[in-house]
């Protein structure tokens, strides 16, 4: 053995963390040399290009939050302008067109560019610390997510420069947003500019889910997971379903606008109501995607300042899961006046009311925690209480509008505006402010001023209620939404004037917050550790948090690691078998802290009981995700102006970026790593984690399944809305070609299975044969579909059936091409000798992809080719 194979605690590999108990005792001594070594490995690259290449979770999280807050300010300015217009009846401060643009941009900015990115930014920053690990599983995906978000937002706002500001509301209902009534670029900016931001959100969601399920500290079992982790886990899964829906709906609308498909054109067999269904299948879960992480924050902050453990942890977990599922069953309550069958409406009305149960469970849990505790009234706690008061009021009005006859009276009135601002500002923005005050020391090493913070809170809270409470009344008096003015003397003026004054008070409050931030960054009170005497793991690191998070990962033994003696008590107090287990894990973690010296190591653990399962290398800094992001933006931006050559250039840049990003940076295992594996019985993967890769493929398959399901839903929705099918006497398609394609897809999947089995036995040559066969069969399947499209006797723009036929077929081709591309690169890398019996994750996930493709093929090809014979 080489002489440097000295594992275990020693003078060379001392502990490095400072961990404090709730009463402030230091347990482990600080500032040992290991920190310097880890700092070098995990350091952000220097210089101008280094800023772009950096991808550490704290840097990315801080950037996302800062950018999202900037968009919040822009959205707020638009709100102030609208309120100024509504100060007097028949005011001419803004034109009707400008007002339409402002409410569209305000809503879109707040919903797409502020709330979700802000919460995702918190997740990316906090989760590794909260979970007791060093990094997110896909740092480059987080980097891609950030640049896609910020460039997408800039693209969206560049609509002002082109005089093409979207003006059809944040929901863009057809036919107003369609090609007939919204000619020109504005709605293309809306669809494509925000489409990029949606891609960013989905990318971040996938990463968050995997981090929480498989990258928790040893001992952080499901029952010990912090509530914020539960909240982000359910949210991440919801994002995958909900944002994918919007992406598909946006794609369909953009196809209608740009190339003449007829999905939403009733005159050609399409359905305008279909857009509403698709939008609100996204739109309603979207508000819970914002609300649920906010509740996670409240559940973390409340116990700290109430000085009492969270009451009802189990019930809160139940409530979070129930809310996530129920939120997908509510969407039609946005369409109660759209003319739907009674059965559908009553169904959704019940679900809309039932979702109050899990919300109520959480509220009572927080109130109980506060009542049983001894509250400390920091600014963060003020915002917690402000959230409780405001959200409950918003929830009550939400139950009211869930009742169909009541909704018929207040739909599209200011009552609804009041309701959703109560739940979104009360339920999301107040928790965000609480979180910013609470975690600011972790981000920066300084506290925000409590004195200025209290002024900030009271101005914001008071201003909010002055602004939005009168809207309930004026809505009941009949004032519709989205009107740029109203008649003087109709009785609405006083309420609008009160609301406008309130809006200015909110603005003053937000301005104070900005001043507080800059002052505190410059000269705020410095803190060095756990200023709030909190219970959760993020406060166990040095402050501000180091890049690498934890030098020695903690072993978690309770829900409140920093409050419970169990988490740091002497191990001889434990039962013998647990003591032995902990000693073994601690030995591994100590060795991990002292090694490796050349790459960024993180740990995966099992999903339920958080046993260590792998050590793997997380990605280091790279420029390729930025290149990929720029390619995506170029594609979307060029498509707005229908510059197809540039679109193609963007596609090429995207592909080049993806190749560079995923180009294998192969590292051979060293003797030291082999010895580590032998000693601790935990595999070391210097070339990426098979577990993380399989989970990411699983989520990718979930995403594609959602896309397929939405296309199929749209297909049958339009089918059943129509009499004869296919429309316009089009003959049903031949079944010969799809039959050939089906056999080819099955053969491709079988070949991939065989290739995977071969490489698992180390048979490299056989694996290459299998990959090649899979490629050939997959290409046949794709070729069959392309040939079919070339000879169909109708264009995509003929009617809705034709549009669906072409789109579903092309989507299926895209799925096959994706699999073929992955297969091709796997083959190329196999010729570089990348794959062994032990490391062949690309082949493994490629096989999983092709198994899933069988399902995609049967679903989509069955819909397109077989259903015309049945319907």
């Amino acid at each position, binding site marked *: 053995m080489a002489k440097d194979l000295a594992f275990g605690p020693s003078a060379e590999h001392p502990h490095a963390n400072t961990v404090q108990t709730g009463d402030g005792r230091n347990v482990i001594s600080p500032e040992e040399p290991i920190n310097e070594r880890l700092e070098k490995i995990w350091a952000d690259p220097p210089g101008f290009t280094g800023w772009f290449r950096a991808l550490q979770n704290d840097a990315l999280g801080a950037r996302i939050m800062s950018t999202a807050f900037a968009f919040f300010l822009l959205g707020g300015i638009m709100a102030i302008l609208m309120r100024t217009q509504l100060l007097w009846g028949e005011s001419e401060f803004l034109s009707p067109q400008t007002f339409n643009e402002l409410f569209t941009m305000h809503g879109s900015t707040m919903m797409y560019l502020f709330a979700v990115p802000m919460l995702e930014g918190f997740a990316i920053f906090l989760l590794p610390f909260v979970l007791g690990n060093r990094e997110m599983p896909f740092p480059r995906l987080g980097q891609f997510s950030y640049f896609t978000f910020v460039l997408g937002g800039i693209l969206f706002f560049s609509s002002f420069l082109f005089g093409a500001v979207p003006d059809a509301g944040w929901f863009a209902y057809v036919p107003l947003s369609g090609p007939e009534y919204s000619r020109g670029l504005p709605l293309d900016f809306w669809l494509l500019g925000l489409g990029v931001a949606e891609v960013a959100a989905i990318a971040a969601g996938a990463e968050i889910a995997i981090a929480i399920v498989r990258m928790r500290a040893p001992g952080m079992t499901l*029952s010990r997971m912090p509530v914020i982790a539960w909240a982000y886990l359910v949210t991440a899964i919801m994002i995958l379903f909900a944002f994918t829906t919007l992406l598909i709906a946006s794609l369909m609308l953009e196809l209608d606008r740009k190339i003449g498909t007829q999905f939403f054109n009733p005159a050609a067999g399409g359905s305008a109501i279909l857009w509403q269904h698709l939008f609100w299948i996204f739109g309603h879960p979207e508000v819970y995607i914002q609300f649920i992480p906010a509740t996670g924050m409240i559940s973390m902050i409340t116990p700290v300042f109430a000085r009492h453990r969270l009451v009802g942890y*189990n019930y809160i977990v*139940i409530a979070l899961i129930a809310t996530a599922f129920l939120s997908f069953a509510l969407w039609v309550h946005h369409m109660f006046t759209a003319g739907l*069958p*009674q*059965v559908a409406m009553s169904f959704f009305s*019940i679900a809309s009311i039932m979702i109050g149960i899990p919300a109520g469970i959480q509220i009572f849990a927080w109130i109980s925690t506060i009542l049983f505790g001894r509250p400390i009234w920091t600014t963060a706690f003020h915002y917690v209480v402000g959230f409780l008061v405001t959200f409950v009021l918003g929830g009550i009005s939400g139950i009211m509008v869930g009742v169909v006859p009541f909704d018929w009276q207040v739909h599209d009135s200011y009552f609804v505006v009041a309701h959703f601002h109560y739940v979104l500002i009360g339920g999301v923005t107040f928790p965000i402010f609480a979180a910013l005050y609470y975690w600011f020391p972790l981000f920066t090493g300084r506290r925000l001023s409590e004195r200025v913070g209290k002024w900030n809170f009271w101005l914001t809270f008071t201003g909010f209620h002055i602004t939005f409470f009168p809207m309930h009344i004026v809505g009941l008096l009949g004032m519709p939404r989205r009107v740029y003015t109203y008649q003087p003397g109709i009785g609405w003026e006083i309420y609008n004037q009160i609301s406008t004054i309130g809006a200015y008070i909110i603005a003053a409050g937000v301005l104070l917050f900005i001043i507080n931030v800059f002052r505190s960054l410059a000269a705020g009170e410095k803190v060095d550790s756990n200023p709030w005497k909190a219970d959760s793991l993020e406060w166990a690191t040095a402050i501000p948090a180091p890049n690498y998070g934890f030098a020695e990962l903690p072993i978690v033994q309770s829900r409140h690691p920093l409050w419970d003696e169990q988490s740091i008590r002497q191990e001889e107090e434990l039962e013998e078998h647990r003591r032995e287990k902990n000693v073994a894990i601690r030995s591994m973690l100590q060795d991990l802290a002292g090694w490796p010296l050349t790459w960024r190591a993180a740990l995966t653990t099992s999903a339920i009981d958080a046993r260590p399962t792998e050590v793997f290398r997380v990605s280091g800094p790279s420029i390729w995700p930025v290149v990929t992001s720029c390619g995506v933006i170029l594609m979307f931006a060029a498509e707005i102006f229908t510059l197809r050559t540039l679109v193609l250039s963007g596609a090429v840049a995207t592909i080049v970026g993806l190749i560079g990003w995923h180009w294998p940076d192969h590292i051979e295992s060293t003797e030291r790593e082999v010895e580590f594996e032998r000693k601790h019985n935990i595999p070391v993967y210097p070339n990426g984690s098979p577990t993380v890769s399989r989970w990411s493929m699983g989520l990718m398959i979930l995403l594609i399944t959602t896309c397929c399901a939405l296309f199929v839903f749209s297909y049958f929705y339009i089918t059943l809305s129509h009499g004869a099918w296919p429309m316009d006497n089009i003959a049903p398609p031949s079944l010969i070609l799809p039959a050939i394609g089906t056999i080819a897809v099955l053969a491709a999947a079988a070949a991939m299975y065989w290739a995977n089995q071969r490489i698992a036995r180390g048979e490299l040559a056989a694996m290459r044969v299998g990959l090649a066969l899979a490629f050939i069969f997959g290409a046949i399947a794709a070729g069959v579909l392309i040939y079919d499209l070339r000879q169909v006797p109708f264009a995509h723009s003929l009617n809705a059936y034709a549009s669906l036929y072409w789109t579903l077929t092309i989507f299926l081709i895209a799925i096959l091409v994706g699999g073929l591309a992955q297969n091709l690169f796997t083959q190329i890398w196999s010729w570089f000798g990348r794959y062994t019996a032990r490391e062949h994750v690309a082949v493994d996930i490629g096989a999983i992809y092709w198994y899933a493709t069988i399902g995609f093929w049967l679903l989509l090809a069955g819909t397109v080719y077989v259903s015309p014979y049945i319907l």
Partner: protein
Amino acid sequence: MTQSNTNADVQKKRLWFIFLAGPVIYAIYFLTVYVLGEFGCLAGIQHFNFWGINPIHLGVVLLTVIAAFATLGVGLTAFRRWRILHKGAEDPDMDDPKFMLFVGLWLNGLFTVVIVLSAVPMLFGSACDWT
């Protein structure tokens, strides 16, 4: 893989099933009833009658009964298993199974109620009256 590893895997899969059965059954129930209701009305199947009963109503009732019994059954299973662990000796290794069983039984119970209540409006009106 040893026998004890296999048993442990089976136990974990059962725990996940109990944990998620309630919401997943509800999701399938909801989608099926929604498709039956909206798509069925679009297709005009309300014009057919089975023993004087509207097929949409009949379908919803049947689906509700099946789904409610399924969630109730899983919830009762969860309750029985949880009670065995709860009454047994304190064992920290059983904390997570107990937690998952506890959450599972309440989720199944909640969704049983939601499923039943969702079908109640069916009793009071015509399925396909268009508003």
